[in-house]
């Protein structure tokens, strides 16, 4: 059933982390291949000709692109264990909505927080916190977005946790002060081996972004 599974990825990518978590949750053995995004491999360009981006999941030689599509694919193929989406269509729709919300908002706002300064940065920080508070509201008193169990929205969002340190340092703010429930949720997720092993070290992310800013000529 497993076949051959390869993941083309880049270690700081929150999107790649989603797929790593899903694969780990399902205990799927796979080959992890690190891509140098300044020197993309022929395989990456062949497997994702449309976007030329990571992550790319290759299952028995066939590529699947876009992290949330990969997570759903993994959930559907390996449907005998650790379900990530619930069986009820309305709950599935709710999960897809919030995962889509994370996609639409968190990455771009987070990037603005570390890339910009002054008024632009302040506006980004404000909106970023507003979005996290909305997510906190959705979490409610549940241990996970999936309810009792770790699920699709948890997978979609938790990789950003290892980037929070970077956002906080560049933005001079504390996410925990604003969203304590969300941080508690993230720490709870980090107790899971699939998450702890898939997320990058937050200090390494910070160093990476420092280097990136220098390379991009952003102060």
């Amino acid at each position: 059933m497993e076949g051959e599974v390869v993941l083309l990825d880049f270690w700081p990518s929150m999107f790649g982390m989603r797929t790593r978590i899903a694969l780990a949750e399902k205990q799927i053995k796979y080959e992890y291949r690190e891509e140098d995004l300044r020197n993309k491999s022929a395989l990456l360009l062949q497997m994702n000709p449309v976007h030329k981006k990571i992550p790319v999941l290759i299952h028995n030689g066939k590529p699947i692109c876009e992290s949330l599509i990969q997570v759903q694919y993994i959930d559907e193929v390996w449907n005998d264990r650790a379900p990530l989406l619930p069986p009820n269509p309305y709950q599935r729709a709710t999960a897809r909505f919030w995962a889509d919300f994370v996609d639409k908002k968190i990455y771009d706002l987070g990037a603005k927080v570390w890339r910009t300064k002054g008024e632009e940065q302040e506006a980004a920080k404000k909106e970023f916190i507003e979005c996290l508070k909305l997510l906190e509201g959705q979490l409610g008193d549940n241990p996970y977005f999936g309810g009792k169990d770790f699920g699709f929205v948890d997978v979609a969002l938790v990789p950003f946790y290892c980037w929070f340190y970077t956002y906080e340092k560049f933005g001079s703010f504390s996410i925990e002060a604003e969203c304590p429930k969300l941080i508690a949720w993230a720490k709870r997720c980090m107790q899971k081996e699939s998450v702890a092993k898939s997320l990058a070290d937050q200090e390494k992310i910070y160093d990476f972004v420092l280097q990136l800013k220098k390379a991009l000529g952003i102060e």
Partner: protein
Amino acid sequence: MDMGDEVKVFGSWGSPFSRRVELALLLKGVPYEYIEEDIFVFENKSPLLLQYNPVHKKVPVLLHNGKPIAESLVILEYIEETWKANPILPEDPYDKAMARFWAKFLDDKCLPAIRKAAFSPENEREEAAEEVRDCLKTLESALNGKRFFGGDAIGMVDIAANFVGFWLRIIQEVTGEELLSVEKLPELFKWTEEFVSCSVVKKCLPPKDKVLDVVKARVAPK
């Protein structure tokens, strides 16, 4: 599904996104009540819409037995999972993943490019038009000789591509920019004709002259 099913769609006559939802319901023979929202003036949005979609405050919203779902592609997946007639997604997980990929490509890349080509100031339009042509060339590759993206019948990708099938030609007419030519994109062009000829699609398109007026009002003069 059962006799007690209550389905409502909050939409806007000119919105390709709410038309997607209506198309899927029509295709599956699901009766629904349609509620028109004025999306052009924010203050006119109904309290119900704001209650059912507090996050984005947009159409479409599907209300099924009182429970709201927002975001057209999320709604399409819900419709597919709830009403089994005339499936719009393939069963095979890989083919399903490919359909989702192309639906996302349409929304993430094609649509913003088309909006730019339509509504940018004149000096930016040619570059934006080139971007659209590239997107459409890529999209065309997904057809791969088939009549529809979904194969012999329309599927989720065809539904998601409704703005390419209908709205794009109107934008072309108004801006005078050639975006989808039969010479350069013969397969995709043929698809647009197949798409608008579908009886179920025909039931679900806005009146062309009304859309023309709206686009004309928004496009900066050439």
